């Protein structure tokens, strides 16, 4: 069961987790990314490539289902403006056993960072700048090659 959501709405974690658990699985691994307040960012804005984003995320979850024995995979990504403390992304992988769920969850968030067409712009006061891709993200994605 694949669930892909790209939306400007806040991410409802409880609803997403209950939906993931509903499949009668034994193991649920999740990752949630949150806008950090610790470096003076007042607002974060997420731009994306409508249609292509959903296609990329669907391909990513299908790849996870091929690699691991999963009951389901969920990716919810927020777009538009958001504030520190708000959730940007939620990823979940469910399986009968924990190793598959934990590995698939890490795979989904690592690969999403380099394969899905999202771009972040940070605002600090009146200044805005586009976030640069990090080398560590490229390395984290490459370990699943």
């Amino acid at each position: 069961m694949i669930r892909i959501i790209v939306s400007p709405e806040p991410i409802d974690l409880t609803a997403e987790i209950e939906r993931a658990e509903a499949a009668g699985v034994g193991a649920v691994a999740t990752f949630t990314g949150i806008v950090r307040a610790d470096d003076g960012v007042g607002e974060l804005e997420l731009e994306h490539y409508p249609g292509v984003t959903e296609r990329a995320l669907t391909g990513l979850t299908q790849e996870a289902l091929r690699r691991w024995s999963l009951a389901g995979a969920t990716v919810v990504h927020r777009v538009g403006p958001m504030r520190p403390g708000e959730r940007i992304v939620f990823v979940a992988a469910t399986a009968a056993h924990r190793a598959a769920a934990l590995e698939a969850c890490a795979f989904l968030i690592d690969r999403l960072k380099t394969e899905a067409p999202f771009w972040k712009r940070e605002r600090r006061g009146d200044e805005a700048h586009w976030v640069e891709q990090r080398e560590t993200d490229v390395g984290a994605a490459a370990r699943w090659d």
Partner: protein
Amino acid sequence: MRLVYFAWVRERIGTGEEQVAPPADVATVAQLIDWLAANSAGHAAAFAERDRLRAAVDGVFVGLDASVVGVDEVAIFPPVTGG
């Protein structure tokens, strides 16, 4: 052919989308970028650092050497930063 741009590529060009009709000898994404940069200062500025550009053709991520012959939509953008 429809061109779409994102993030700072979009901002430097000044639009997120445009229709173009490149000449027949523009066969790859890289050649398309060269042709666009030669015809507009905004495009030239957006495309100045070629190694910071990524592309998708008809919704599929590709290298800059990919073909654009007969395609509907080419997207040009910086490396992605979601998650």
